[in-house]
C-alpha cells in the first residue's frame, strides 16, 4: 500500500498523518480521524451522506482520493458548531423536525450550509435545486426544505432568531411541533450508527455471495483464504453449533447457505480480517463448487405440478395461503348489474434506506455473545440466535443501534448470525458494513404481486361481491411473507363494506431475492388493485369516484372483511378532506388531461426543470446567464 505524508487542516486544526494517498477522503476522515459524522450511503456519489467542504467547496468525499486534499482546509459536520452547541442551520433542522432516521442529515446540513454561504437569498426552488445531490428516504424532504428556508430567513434577518426556539406547549402536545429528543445528536453527526462504532482489536468482515439463483454447493474450500496474512477466520454454515434457521415466521433460512443456494446474493461464506481490503481480497481465494439447479423465477411457475422444489419442507412451494370467506359470492355476483374483471401487477421495490446494513459483534468477559445492529426486531433475533449458536438466552445479547432507515427492511436477521459466529471463533470484535450494492442484492424487497380481481356492482354503484386472488413472489426465503399475506388479505377489499367476498392471498417460493416486510406490509399492493377497480367502476357506471366510494364505505356498525364490527370509521372524513384538497371537479371520471379543471393551479407542481439560480438575484452580485 502506498504511503504519503498528508498535511491538512481539519475543522480548524492541523492534521498530519502518513496515509494511503489513493484511499478516499471519506475513509481518511472516518477511519484515520474518527470523524464519523461523515457517512457512507452509497460510495458512488449518488446520496450525499459524505458531503464535506474542501477549501470552502462542498464535495462528496466518497469520490475524492485523499491525496487531492493535500494541504487543503477541510470542514466536516463536526466542525460547524462548537462541541455541545448547534449552529443556526442545525437549530433549524431541530426546530422543524427535519431529522428522522438521521443518517442523511449530516450531509443535508452540509448542503444547506453550502447554499447559505453561496446563495443566502436562495428561493425555495433554488434551495431544492441546490440540494439535488442529497437523498433522504424518511422525510419526503418537506421538513428539510422548511428547515433550510427557516435558517435562511434567520441568517438574512427576515426572521428573528427566536423563530428557532421550541414552540411553547400548553396543556397538550397535540397540534404542536414537538422537537425530537435525538435531533441534536443527529444534526451534529454525533450519533453513532453501527457502522460508525469501533472497538479495540476489531476485525472487519466481508461476505462471499452466491452468483447463482439455485445451485447445490458441492464443496467450499476456504484453506487458501484462511492462510492469508491478516485473515483471522473464515466461516461457513459448518461453523453453526446449534439448530440453524431464522425467519420472522418460518425458520427456513440458514445463517449462510447450507448445502445449496436459493438466490443470487445469498451469503455462502464470510471472512474476518484486519481490514476490509484484506477481507475482500480473501473472498477471491475461497473456492466454491456449485452444481446449478433448475430455478423458479415466476410465482405462477412455482405452483405448476412438477416445479422444482426450493425448500424440502414445502414441496408445493407455498410459503403461506390466507383465505377469507364472507357471505355468498355466487349470490352476490347474481345480484350484480355490472361485473368487472381485471388483473393488477406490482413490482419488487427496494427500501433503499440511507444506512446500509451494519453490525458489530463481540463476546464479552462473561461469555455473552453480543450483537450491535440496527435490527428492527432485536428480541426475536436474540431468541433465534440463542438456538442457532446453542447458547442459553442469558448468554446472547442484542443491542439495537440507531436505525438509519428501516421501513421493514431491517426486520430480517440476514447478517447478525455471521457476526456472532466470527466473534465466537476469534474472540475478537467483528464489524460488517454492507456496501450499497450488497444491501440491494441481499436484503428483502417489497413483494411483487399479481391480483386477479372480479367485482360485482349494482347500477347504483353498490358492490355486491368481490373475488380477490393475489399471488405474491415470496422469493427464496419466507421472511415476513406470512404476515404480509395476512395483512394483504385483511385489507384486500379496502375500507368498503362488502357483504360477499372471497379473498385468497398466497406467497410462494421462487429463486428471486426474498421478499419481506415493507411499509404497508402488503396493503399497498391490495389497495392498488381495489382502488383501481373502483375507479374503473365509477367510469363504467357514470358515477363520481368520491360518490361511489361513499356509497360503499364502512361506517360505525359495519362488518369488516374479517367480520369485526366497527365502532367507528373515518373514511367519510378522509374522502371529504381529499375531495376539498384536490379541488375535485365533480362528475364521472370521463374527462382526461387538460380538459379537467382541477389539474394545474394552486397546490399542483409545475413541470420539472432546473435553473432557479439563473433568476435575477437581489444581492447585486453578477450572476451567470
Amino acid at each position, binding site marked *: *500500500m*502506498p504511503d*504519503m505524508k498528508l498535511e491538512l487542516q481539519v475543522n480548524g486544526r492541523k492534521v498530519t498523518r502518513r496515509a*494511503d*494517498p*489513493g*484511499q*478516499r477522503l471519506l475513509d481518511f476522515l472516518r477511519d484515520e480521524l474518527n470523524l464519523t459524522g461523515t457517512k457512507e450511503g452509497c*460510495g*458512488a*456519489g*449518488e446520496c*450525499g451522506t459524505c*458531503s464535506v467542504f*474542501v477549501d470552502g*467547496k*462542498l*464535495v*462528496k468525499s*466518497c*469520490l*475524492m*482520493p485523499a*491525496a*487531492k486534499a*493535500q494541504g487543503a482546509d477541510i470542514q466536516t459536520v463536526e466542525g460547524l458548531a462548537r462541541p455541545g452547541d448547534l449552529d443556526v442551520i442545525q437549530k433549524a433542522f431541530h426546530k422543524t423536525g427535519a431529522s428522522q432516521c438521521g443518517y442523511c442529515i449530516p450531509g443535508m446540513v452540509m*448542503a444547506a450550509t*453550502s447554499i447559505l454561504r453561496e446563495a443566502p437569498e436562495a428561493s425555495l426552488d433554488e434551495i431544492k*435545486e*441546490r440540494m*439535488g*445531490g442529497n437523498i433522504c428516504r424518511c422525510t419526503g424532504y418537506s421538513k428539510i426544505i422548511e428547515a433550510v428556508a427557516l435558517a435562511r430567513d434567520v441568517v438574512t434577518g427576515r426572521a428573528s432568531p427566536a423563530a428557532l426556539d421550541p414552540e411553547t406547549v400548553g396543556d397538550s402536545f397535540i397540534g404542536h411541533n414537538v422537537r425530537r429528543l435525538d435531533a441534536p445528536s443527529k444534526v451534529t453527526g454525533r450519533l453513532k450508527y453501527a457502522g460508525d462504532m469501533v472497538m479495540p482489536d476489531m476485525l472487519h468482515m466481508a461476505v462471499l455471495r452466491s452468483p447463482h439463483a439455485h445451485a447445490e454447493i458441492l464443496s467450499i474450500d476456504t484453506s487458501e483464504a484462511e492462510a492469508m496474512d491478516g485473515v483471522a477466520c473464515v466461516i461457513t454454515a459448518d461453523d453453526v453449533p446449534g439448530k440453524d434457521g431464522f425467519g420472522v415466521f418460518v425458520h427456513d433460512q440458514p445463517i449462510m447457505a447450507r448445502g445449496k443456494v436459493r438466490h443470487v446474493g445469498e451469503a455462502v461464506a464470510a471472512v474476518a480480517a484486519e481490514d*476490509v*481490503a484484506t477481507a*475482500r*481480497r480473501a473472498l477471491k481465494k475461497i473456492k466454491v463448487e456449485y452444481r446449478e439447479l433448475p430455478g423458479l423465477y415466476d410465482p405462477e411457475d412455482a405452483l405448476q405440478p412438477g416445479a422444482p422444489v426450493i425448500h424440502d419442507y414445502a414441496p408445493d412451494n407455498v410459503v403461506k395461503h390466507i383465505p377469507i370467506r364472507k357471505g355468498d359470492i355466487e349470490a352476490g355476483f347474481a345480484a350484480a348489474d355490472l361485473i368487472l374483471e381485471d388483473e393488477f401487477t406490482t413490482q419488487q421495490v427496494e427500501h433503499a434506506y440511507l444506512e446500509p446494513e451494519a453490525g458489530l459483534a463481540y463476546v464479552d468477559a462473561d461469555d455473552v455473545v453480543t450483537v450491535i445492529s440496527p435490527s428492527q426486531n432485536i428480541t426475536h433475533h436474540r431468541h433465534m440466535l440463542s438456538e442457532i449458536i446453542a447458547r442459553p438466552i442469558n448468554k446472547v445479547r442484542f443491542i439495537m443501534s440507531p436505525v438509519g432507515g428501516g421501513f421493514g427492511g431491517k426486520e430480517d436477521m440476514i447478517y447478525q448470525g455471521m457476526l456472532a459466529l466470527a466473534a465466537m471463533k476469534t474472540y475478537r470484535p467483528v464489524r460488517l458494513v454492507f*456496501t450499497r*450494492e*450488497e444491501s440491494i*442484492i441481499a436484503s428483502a424487497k417489497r413483494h411483487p404481486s399479481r391480483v386477479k380481481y372480479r367485482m360485482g356492482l349494482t347500477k347504483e354503484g353498490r358492490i355486491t361481491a368481490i373475488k380477490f386472488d393475489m399471488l405474491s413472489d415470496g422469493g427464496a426465503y419466507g421472511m415476513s411473507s406470512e404476515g404480509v399475506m395476512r395483512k394483504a388479505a385483511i385489507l384486500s377489499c379496502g375500507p368498503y363494506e362488502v357483504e360477499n367476498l372471497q379473498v385468497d392471498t398466497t406467497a410462494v417460493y421462487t429463486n428471486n431475492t426474498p421478499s419481506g416486510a415493507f411499509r404497508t406490509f402488503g396493503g399497498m399492493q391490495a389497495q392498488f388493485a381495489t382502488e383501481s377497480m373502483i375507479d374503473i367502476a365509477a367510469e363504467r357506471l357514470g358515477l363520481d369516484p368520491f360518490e361511489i366510494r361513499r356509497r360503499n364505505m364502512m361506517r360505525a356498525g359495519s362488518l369488516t372483511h374479517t367480520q369485526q364490527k366497527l365502532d367507528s370509521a373515518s373514511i367519510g372524513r378522509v374522502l371529504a378532506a381529499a375531495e376539498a384538497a384536490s379541488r375535485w371537479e365533480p362528475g364521472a371520471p370521463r374527462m382526461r388531461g387538460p380538459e379537467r379543471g382541477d389539474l394545474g393551479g394552486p397546490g399542483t407542481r409545475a413541470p*420539472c*426543470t*432546473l*435553473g432557479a*439560480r*439563473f433568476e435575477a438575484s437581489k444581492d447585486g452580485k*453578477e*450572476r*451567470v*446567464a
Partner: protein
Amino acid sequence: MLTFDRYEMPATLPEALALWADAPAGARLVAGATDILPWAREGRAGDVDLPLGIDLSRVAELQGYERHGGRVRLGANVVWQDFLDTPELARWLPVMPYCAVWFADDQIRQQATLAGNLVNASPAADGTPPVLALNGELELCRWAGDHILCRTMRVEDFVTGPGATRLAPGELVNSVTLDCADGYGASFQKVGQRRSLVISVACVAALVKLDETGTRFADVRLALGGVGPVPERLRDIEDRLKGEPVDARLIADAAAATAARVASRSRIEYRRRVVPGFVRAALEEAADRARKEAAHA
C-alpha cells in the same frame, strides 16, 4: 473498491507526461475521480487494484483558461462548476452554464472536469453536445523523450464510439478550445428520470444568433446526445434554419426531422417521441434568449 499500488500527484506537465510515458500496463490518469471511483464497484469493474494512479489535479499547466480572439482555451482541470461560478466563462460560452446546471449535482461539479467528461466518451455525456456546438478541439500531449509533443483534434473526430476515443498511448488531454459565442442565446435540454445525478436519455444543446433585425437566424448550432453511439452535430438542420425568419412553424418542422437521428440500442420509440420536442424547445429557448441578449446589448 479501488486501490492503487502507487499514487502520484505531479506538479508540472512534463512530470505528468514522463510518468504516463513510463506507466505500467493498467495505470490510469485521474482527473476529477468522480467516474473512476464509482466504476470500481460491484456490478461494474468490481474491486480493482491499479498499479499506478497519476492524479492530474495539481498539474500547473492544466489550470485556468484564457481567451485568444474568438476562441477560449480551457485547461483540462477546468471543472463543471466553473461554468456557473465564473461570469466571464458564462458570457463567452453561454451554453455551458445551462448544461452545467443539469450535470450531476452541485458537489460533483466541483470536482468533475469537462475534459474528463469528453475522454470518458459516454454516448450520454452531457458535455459533448455543447462542445460539438462550439466547434471544440482538444490539445493532446505526450512525452517524446525530452520534450512535449502536442497535436490538436476536433472533438467530433476524437470520440469514436461508446467509451472509445482517438487518445493514443501516452497521451493526455491538455486543453479544450471552444468558440466564444458572446451574444448568442443558448439552451440545454435534457430528459432523464430526475433532475440531479441522472444519465441523459436524450440531451440537446442549441445556440442561436439573430441578425441585426432580431427576426432571422444569423447562426444556429445544434448538437444531440444520448440517442446513438456518439453525440452528433446536426448541421443539416442548422443550414436549413440559417438565414430564415425565426418562426415557430419552421422550428417545429426542422425539429421533427430529428426523430430519424435516434440510433440507440434501447427505448428507441420513446426517444423518437421526445427528441423532436426537446430540439424544438431548445431552439425556441435559445432564440428567445438571443432576442433578450440583443435587447440587452
